[in-house]
């Protein structure tokens, strides 16, 4: 059976679909958070060198990965909106930005809390930390630029350019630990294998999935409000059951 993917690129068809998907993503996320925290704090053993402090990894690494991944998705949607002039793509980019900013903030915050007992400092101007801070500023810049222009379509185009140019920062964050001699440790999980205990890996990947599902649920909920706001003068909005 062929699926017509373009069908859901219109706000009229995407709005009800997003509404149906949100509970599934939200409930799955809550379950995975509970499972991930249980494995991370009950099943996984203490680290040989870092003791209990390493357990910050189960929120720090997933939030860092999600903050970078969301930026690429946001830039992708922004580029689609810019190239094809599709309304929904730009709306999705606007909906993703606040969640991405929050994940970047959580990544920096939990990193500082991990850095203090391990390095003796909350913050160092290390390449990985600094590039992640720039990512947070890029998200905030995207949100501020979009909010500063009254016409939504012009705001979409201006913010899209910022998102596309800023996406160059994502590979810099990822490869910073390879390109420069950083205090931040390199990747523990590589293509060649890992020295991580299996329970630690399970907890980290479960929390990663939970954070991802949470981000999707929140972005979908936010884009529904953006669709309502931008399409409020259209007939299909006035005919919605929740509006009547």
């Amino acid at each position: 059976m062929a699926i017509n993917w373009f069908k859901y690129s219109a706000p009229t068809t995407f709005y009800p679909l997003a509404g149906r998907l949100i509970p599934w993503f939200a409930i799955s996320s809550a379950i995975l958070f509970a499972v991930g925290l249980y494995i991370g704090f009950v099943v996984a053993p203490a680290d040989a060198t870092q003791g209990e402090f390493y357990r910050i990894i189960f929120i720090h690494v997933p939030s860092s990965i999600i903050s970078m991944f969301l930026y690429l998705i946001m830039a992708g949607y922004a580029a689609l909106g810019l190239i094809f002039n599709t309304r929904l793509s730009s709306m999705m980019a606007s909906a993703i930005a606040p969640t991405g900013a929050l994940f970047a903030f959580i990544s920096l915050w939990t990193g500082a809390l991990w850095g203090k007992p391990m390095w003796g400092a909350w913050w160092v101007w290390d390449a990985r930390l600094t590039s992640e801070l720039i990512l947070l500023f890029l998200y905030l810049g995207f949100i501020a630029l979009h909010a500063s222009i009254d016409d939504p379509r012009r705001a979409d185009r201006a913010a899209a350019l910022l998102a596309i140019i800023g996406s160059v920062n994502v590979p810099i964050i990822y490869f910073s630990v390879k390109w420069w001699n950083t205090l931040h440790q390199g990747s523990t999980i590589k293509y060649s294998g890992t020295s991580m205990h299996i329970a630690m890996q399970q907890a980290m990947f479960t929390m990663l999935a939970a954070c991802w599902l949470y981000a999707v649920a929140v972005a979908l909920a936010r884009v529904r409000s953006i669709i309502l706001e931008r399409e409020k003068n259209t007939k299909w909005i006035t005919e919605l059951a929740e509006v009547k």
Partner: protein
Amino acid sequence: MGLDIWMRENPLTYIWVGSYAVAFIIFAVEIAMVIHKRKITLQQVRLMREASEEE
């Protein structure tokens, strides 16, 4: 100095209060903001619809 000693004596409390509790509070605030935004947007749309019907 006091914090350094406390965090080494209570690592799990430090981790939970400092990172996990903060992260989950941030998630809760974000969810509340999204729900609030939907509520006020729906109100606006309803008001607009009512106004256009009265005309």
